[in-house]
């Protein structure tokens, strides 16, 4: 039974761990499906996290916080657009630049404003997103099997967690059921076709990047306002890159993206869980083995089961009509 409980708890932690990845991954999906590579996810998440925590602390409101997070990280997405769409710059260089600027500016401003080494003040409950207890969670807690699953795994997460998972079907719907989605997918495959169909390639791609900005903003807010109560420098800790990997893993498809992120989340949760206490038979294995476990398994799965991932055809290449 407690094996079962342990499993549920691990899945619970899987969910929490996968949320920032999922949001960032979907963010990347919008821009890359539109043909704009984005290794600046990391930086945009970081500024989102910073702006969110700052605004929340200053205005004592979680909503203002997340609003600010979205605003700022969208602004950074627009910089990416200005460089790679308007001026046909190299998208990877632009992404790297954004990561640098984000890493530096968050600490500088944080230090200038709060004098805590780039940290923002700890947020009170009111300034963060509370976790929602679904109706009847307490009641069914003791029901075998379903009880823990409902009360632990399903219920009791922050509103942003549910939001993140709702974003998956929503993104799917946008991509495959709306005009915007159709054009978005088209411009990532063959911008000339979109152009000759009388649609502005640039404006379309800018809008895609706005979606990216919004989602990275939420992802950042989740880090600094849900998982943690405040900003800590470099707190994205490479999650942007993992999200990028997940996106490729998912072959740029929204539902796959969810599973990819859940997988990454699960592997990390597993490594944390297994590391904590000595294992049966093997005993305590060295920390590094456990740290490396998720990444090794990812590679194995990738090589073993996931076929070739074909990126959007026009990805990474600026749209140039005339040379």
């Amino acid at each position, binding site marked *: 039974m407690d094996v079962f409980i342990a499993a549920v708890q691990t899945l619970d932690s899987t969910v929490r761990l996968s949320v920032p990845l999922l949001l960032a991954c979907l963010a990347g999906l919008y821009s890359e499906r539109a043909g704009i590579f984005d290794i600046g996810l990391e930086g945009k998440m970081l500024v989102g996290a910073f702006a969110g925590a700052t605004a929340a602390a200053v205005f004592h409101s979680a909503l203002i916080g997340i609003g600010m997070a979205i605003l700022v990280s969208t602004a950074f997405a627009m910089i990416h657009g200005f460089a790679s769409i308007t001026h046909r710059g*190299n998208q990877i260089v632009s992404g790297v*630049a954004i990561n*640098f*600027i984000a890493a530096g500016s968050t600490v500088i401003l944080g230090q200038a404003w709060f004098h805590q080494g780039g940290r923002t003040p700890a947020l009170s409950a009111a300034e963060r997103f509370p976790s929602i207890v679904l109706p009847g969670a307490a009641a069914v807690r003791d029901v075998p099997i379903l009880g823990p699953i409902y009360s632990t795994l399903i219920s009791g997460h922050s509103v942003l967690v549910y939001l993140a998972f709702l974003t998956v079907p929503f993104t799917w719907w946008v991509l495959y059921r709306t005009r915007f989605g159709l054009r978005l997918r088209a411009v990532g495959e063959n911008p000339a076709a979109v152009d000759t169909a009388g649609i502005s390639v640039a404006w379309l791609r800018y809008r895609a990047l706005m979606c990216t900005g919004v989602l990275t903003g939420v992802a950042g807010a989740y880090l600094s306002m849900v998982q943690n109560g405040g900003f800590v420098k470099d707190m994205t800790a490479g999650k942007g890159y993992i999200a990028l*990997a997940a996106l490729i*893993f998912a072959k740029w498809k929204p539902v796959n993206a969810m599973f990819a992120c859940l997988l990454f989340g699960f592997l990390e949760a597993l490594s944390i869980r297994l590391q904590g206490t000595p294992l049966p038979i093997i005993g305590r294995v060295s920390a590094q083995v456990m740290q490396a476990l998720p*990444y090794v398994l990812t590679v194995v799965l990738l090589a073993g089961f996931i076929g070739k*991932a074909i990126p959007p055809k026009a990805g990474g290449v600026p749209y140039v009509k005339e040379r």
Partner: protein
Amino acid sequence: MSAPYAKLPAWADYGLIPLVNLVVAFIVAGLVVLLVGENPFRAAVILVEGAFGRGQGIAYTLYYATTFIFTGLSVAVAVHCGLFNIGTEGQAYIGGLGVAIVCLAFDSLLPWWLTFPLAILGAAAMGALWALIPAWLQARRGSHIVITTIMFNFIAASIMVYLLVGPLKPLASQAPQTRLFLDGGQLPKLNWLIELFGGKVRAAPFNVSFLLALFMAWLMWVLIWRTRLGYEMRTYGFSPKAARYAGISETRIIIVTMMISGALAGMMALNPTMGDQHNVAIDFVNGAGFVGIAVALMGRSHPLGIVLAAVLFGMLYQGGAELSFEMPNISRDMIVIIQGLVILFAGALEHMFRPSIQTLFATLSPKSAGLAVNGEGA
């Protein structure tokens, strides 16, 4: 791109435009400096002087540049074959293992000029090995190189921590690093080179691996534009279909390219370890791999461009340090912002001023304006 149009002379293309971009980058950075209440002009002067003013500064600048030349070349080689090697960081880290093994084994027995070649081999071999697996997976299993190399960066970190807190750490020491290399594992400095030109260098880590870096840059140029292998790499990079038609083996070209890329990344380890710290310490790569991406692409994947971009970053690192010595308000994070702005304006926005400059040329000197050639017809 409509009239008036001027075909820019090379000096404008490769000199003027980058310069303009740089100036703009510094102007914007200046605004940031202004924000923290310092004088941007003084800051700029300190930064440039700190990097190039005194021999000491130049030595440090070139020392950092050495590191970025290696990582930049590593990324660029892969780019020419249409591969995005984001794993330079990890390959360099593992390259350090190669250095450690060689130096710990031989530094007591051999002079540096014998250890060095061995260490080069060790570092290159380790780096190549670390790139081999992702390359093989890409070529054979179609696993996307970007994911695998990202994952391998993390795996490399775990391996190095394991070794540096365990087997490779001297018992008595607290620090997660190897013992100090003896003279046999220490590269001679090149500071005399600068003093030759009248600069004064008290002590700086600028060492012979700089020459190796330059040599590798030249070698890469030969490889890409002068060898059959390079020809095949470029063919595959531009058009895999054409490569297949030309009888170029996809598996072979991917694996070979990535191993060369990994080897170059691995050699980066020589500079900070044998060249400066004289040990292999935890996280000695310190993000140089990611800077390498910017360096490679800003250098348009051309060795010469890469060397220049690397020196630019070396200048930002060294000048930046001086800046935070001189201006306590300007912390190291400010330097990171400035680096970002340079990457943005000199890299991603490199084309921003091109049209206006071309128009300028066209209006200034109609001669240089491209004659209206007819559409070449068959």
